[in-house]
């Protein structure tokens, strides 16, 4: 079972590592918001005659051709259309906090639970645990009782 769990975790990690976006236009465009006030993402803005989205999309295409760095493209939009045009927070300075906090809090929480449970287990009397699990006959009876009382 441990092997299966490890395999699952490994495959998840590998798939995550292998995952890479192949469309810069969709990827970078998905981080920019239309600034006309429609509250839609740039590539989703469906307002005919929108005063901003056509220009922004043209700029996006030209910036993607001009710069191989996505961050530079996003910075161009921040400078040109205001900081709120880019909906993905930056990964440096104060904005880094938002990326770090959720996984950090979750990770610390999980770690805390594991440590607490381990500590409580160590405190438990070893005799209690041993008495039940060491006798295979009793363990079989326990398993049967467990199955039949589960319903």
């Amino acid at each position, binding site marked *: *079972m*441990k092997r*299966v769990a490890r395999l699952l975790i490994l495959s*998840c990690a590998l*798939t*995550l590592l*292998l*995952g*890479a*976006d*192949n469309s810069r236009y969709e990827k970078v465009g*998905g*981080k920019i*918001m239309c600034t006309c006030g429609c*509250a*839609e*993402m740039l590539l*989703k803005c*469906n*307002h*005919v*005659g929108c005063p901003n989205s056509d220009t922004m999309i043209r700029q996006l295409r030209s910036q993607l051709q001009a710069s191989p760095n996505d961050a530079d493209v996003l910075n161009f939009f921040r400078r040109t259309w205001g*900081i*709120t*045009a*880019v*909906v*993905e*927070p930056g990964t440096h300075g*104060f*904005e880094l906090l*938002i*990326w770090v*906090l*959720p*996984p950090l*809090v*979750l990770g610390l*929480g*999980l770690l805390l*639970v594991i440590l607490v*449970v*381990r500590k*409580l*287990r160590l*405190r*438990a009397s070893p005799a209690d645990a041993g008495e*039940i699990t060491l006798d295979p006959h*009793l*363990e079989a*009876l*326990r*398993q*049967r*009782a*467990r199955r*039949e*009382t*589960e*319903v």
Partner: protein
Amino acid sequence: MPLLGDFCLIVALALAGYSFVFGIIAAVSKDSGAGFRLGETARRAGIWIFFAVTIAAFALAWAAMNNDFSLAYVKAHSNRALPTAYKFAALWSGQEGSLLFWSWLLACYGLVLRLRHKVDRRLVAMTSIIVAGIQVFFLILCNFVANPFGMLDRAALDGNGLNPLLQYPEMVIHPPMLYLGYVGFSLPFSFALAALIIRYPGEKWIHITRRWTMVTWLFLGFGISLGAHWAYAVLGWGGYWGWDPVENASLLPWITGTAFLHSVMMQEKRGMMKKWNVWLIFITFMLTILGTMLTRGGAVSSVHAFAQSAISPWFYWFLGIVFVVCLTFFILNRDHLQAENRLESLVSRESSFLFNNLVLLGACFAVLCGTLFPLLSEAVQGHKITVGPPFFNKVVIPIGLFLIFLTAVGPLLAWRSTSWGSLKRNFAWPAGISLVVTSALVVWNIRPWQGLSRVREWTTGLETAQIFSWMTILFSTLVIMTIASEFIRGGRVLQGKLNTNLFSGMYHLTRRNMRRYGGYVVHFGFILVMIGIAGLAFNQDKEQEMGLGDKLQIGHYTLVGQKYTQDDNANYGSEAAVLDVYKNGKFLGTLFPELRFFKASGGQPDHIVANHSTLVEDLYVIYEGRNTETDRPIIKAFVNPLVSWVWIGVLVVMFGTMVALVPNAEQIRSTVPVSVALKAMEEQGLEPARVGK
């Protein structure tokens, strides 16, 4: 009528104040006879709040229905040409009305609570005081900060009309459902705080609280899904969840409520996590207040800019007071919340609940971070940044995947401790089948998973979203298999005992433990929603100018422009396209996407989406209008796989919740002795393991 409504609001505030103050005096009174009589008057005053607020709400609805444009609120949110149902919906369309609606719903819940006081007089009396306290806050807002009965100097001839985005049938029931959820959490909160204040012995309060929470959670979940469906059908961007701050605000209490519904089982079964549960329900209530503030206060910019004003400071103060009260009584009475048992193993049902709670709270924290970070950045950096879908997708989706995994594993674990052998035995088949299913998707090019069919793409540049989708399917299959195995295993036992067939066995199994098996149905529905969401990775869209006879090709579909029409009525003018749809050359039908221009709102446009929906995918078409240069109509089409499963999943979740709310059938007497194992264990002086319930 408005004057009567205004008067009733004042009366309601006086009654709520009386119920609150004299309820407290009665609770602390040393003279039990006088205290009881005073408490009874406080309870009755609480009942009368309902009638006073009902008259006020009726007066506002009456004014809207009868085009009384002397009221500023009615002028701002209604107009003569508005259909009657939407005039009624004006009651909760603006800030003042929605706060009145909040008060009315709380009065309804309060009425039920106070009429059912015989359940436990002492607990209900204290709960009633806390509900009255909350009611006082909202009635102060209604009377002095956002009064819906404010009069204009001169009555207007017509109103500004309802926001066009709200003129959609679902919008008539979405806010009430959402508010039933928001307001409903006041009751579990009040029960929990009351039980803490009076050091209520036993776990009865938690049984009562759990049922209230389930009902409230059901309403909130339904409200959220209605909002998502509205966004899909009206906003016209092809999606249903945009991580908008107001959407997030509704999700937050739902997540913590979900965590509570899981961890409360630990308290009921094993007397554990009492402090945790109390804080979960406190936090859930505070998040509903935060949600109301975000929706109505305008603290963060949102597409839901229906009602914004500067009432936020009032909510900040209220939140602060609630927090201080909760913290004070928690510190004073925390010894009352000592756990009766301890966690014994990492591989146990208790641990799975604990991890489930942590992951849910992690998701809640991530969403809260993203929602409030613009405010934080403004305070720290001096400018407000925008946090949109890219952040939430990157942070919340992995957490969600972990949650699905836990949903699969949790039910297979026993209380106290689970051996690896039993886990392996229970887990092998579900894990094997889910691996086979997901491998089949990859290898056999099963639609709509074309992106996963070629090894080259897999190793060189598959989109992250597709990988997440694939993992969602993997874990979802695992969950479905574990749920099925739980039903089949239990059904087989009863099949033998009752001498019936498997389905009847499963039915009796469910009737004997509605909560547990209803919970599995809820899990199943949740998984269907996740499968629907997994389809997002394979969305396609295409935009094109289309004249008569022109074709638009997207996926297997071909759209052909047949006709373009215009229409006009008192409320709006409209342009529509008539499009024939073919799939693989076969005629499917005709779609009529429309664009409406609402007159009272200065010609504000609103999309009426045409959607051809199947279980596999939606063909979602919008008419964007005419190109200002060429005057040719512009059509945008989306192919959105698996979206239907989101809505089906929501219905299944609702059904499961209702099943879980039904009381168990009486135990069916077994004709076969339970087990020789029990007898043998008794001889050995052992206690049978408490599992699975």
